């Protein structure tokens, strides 16, 4: 089977090590013999032009730039120090050598992933449809933790709301929400929030909705774990586990 060459999925260098390895290869240098001072200015020019620099990782690139400048300044001293194990240059080179291995493994894993993805398993499609069912076997400890985290976050918001929503009328909000739900049969929470004008109004609305759910006037349904919440009028049927 034809396996395509290693393809990078982003337009950016993944990080400073990625860029350094690129420069070493581009200049046909040997990673075991290179003096990093040689490519410092080239590295800095990439930073100046933001050429291939992942904007969300700029500070990582800059940290390495500082190390490179420091290495270069040391190399300009009258008596350049030797490359002992503790020198910053040796340390960075060791990191680079290790990172080169990481890239090799990544390339191998990517090829394996490509081969495996050609084989379709029976449930592959079905899982897309069965998201709403939580099978005990399929829930990981991490997911359980995620769920708790979501509850805590929600709770934190609630406590905040109790303080900040004094000045607004919950009664009038409740009337407004009730009439909206009566009209459409349900309310998409995110869509509704996006129609509100101020943070204060959003907070009061959210608080009102929580109250209405608590008093069993509404049922809140979350279709997927972190999906949007829809609110429905409560039916007299008891829903239990």
């Amino acid at each position, binding site marked *: 089977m034809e396996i395509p060459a290693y393809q990078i999925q982003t337009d950016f260098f993944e990080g400073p090590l990625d860029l350094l390895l690129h420069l070493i290869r581009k200049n046909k240098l040997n990673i075991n013999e290179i003096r990093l001072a040689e490519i410092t200015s080239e590295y800095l020019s990439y*930073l100046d032009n*933001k050429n291939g620099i992942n*904007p*969300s*990782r*700029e*500070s*990582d690139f*800059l940290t390495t730039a500082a190390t490179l400048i420091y290495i270069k300044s040391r190399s300009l001293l009258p008596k350049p120090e030797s490359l002992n194990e503790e020198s910053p240059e040796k340390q960075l080179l060791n990191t680079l050598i290790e990172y080169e291995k990481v890239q090799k493994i990544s390339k191998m894993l990517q090829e394996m992933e490509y081969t495996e993805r050609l084989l*379709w*398993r*029976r*449930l*592959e*499609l*079905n899982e897309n449809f069965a998201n709403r*069912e*939580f*099978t*005990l*076997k399929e*829930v*990981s*400890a*991490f*997911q*359980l*933790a*995620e*769920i*708790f*985290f979501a*509850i*805590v976050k*929600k*709770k934190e918001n*609630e406590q905040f709301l109790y303080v900040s929503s004094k000045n607004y009328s919950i009664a009038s909000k409740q009337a407004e929400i009730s009439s909206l739900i009566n009209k459409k049969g349900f309310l998409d929470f995110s869509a509704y929030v996006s129609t509100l004008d101020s943070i204060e109004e959003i907070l009061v609305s959210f608080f009102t909705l*929580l109250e209405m*759910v*608590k008093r069993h006037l509404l049922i809140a349904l*979350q279709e997927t*774990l972190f999906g949007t919440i829809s609110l429905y009028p409560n039916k007299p049927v008891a829903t*239990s*586990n």
Partner: protein
Amino acid sequence: MNSEQIALIEAILFVSKDPLEPKRIMDFLQITDAKQFEKDLQAMENEHLLNRPERGLLLKKSGGGLQLVTKPELHDDLKAFFTIKQVTKLTLASLETLSIVAYRQPTTLAEISDMRGVNSTGPVKNLLQKKLIRISGRKKVPGLPALYATTPEFLIYFGLNDMSELPSLEELTELFEEKEQPSLFK
């Protein structure tokens, strides 16, 4: 139909667990003669499934859809093979309740209901029945409400060696609230 088409139909029916409308397959294979297609399918079933003792599957048409199913004579063997474990399903309500017990244990029904914002009697009962939580004591407050904690079965279900392997809230905060790194260039 040629061999490649038959192979593709097998693969499509294998992957899809719901019955498929024959029309969808016809359109995809650019077959226009429905009668002929039906005959071909019948031939495919006879030649490659029914009359082959080494095949365990059949082509079934139900509710207007095509589906691969196991041969009826294998039913008893399949039942015997698969009845060893039955998958229990936990609802989101139970999972929420379980997560609260796991992180807040020992905790009471009132505390659970408060955190979830809904009465949680149902899920608590459900988890007790599944032995994922147990009553570990009584809270020294009026009414002496039961305190709930997780069980050894809980650890087994989630593949944990001990409770310390659950991610901590600090770690989750770190994972979920990764701040944008401040830009140093702009």
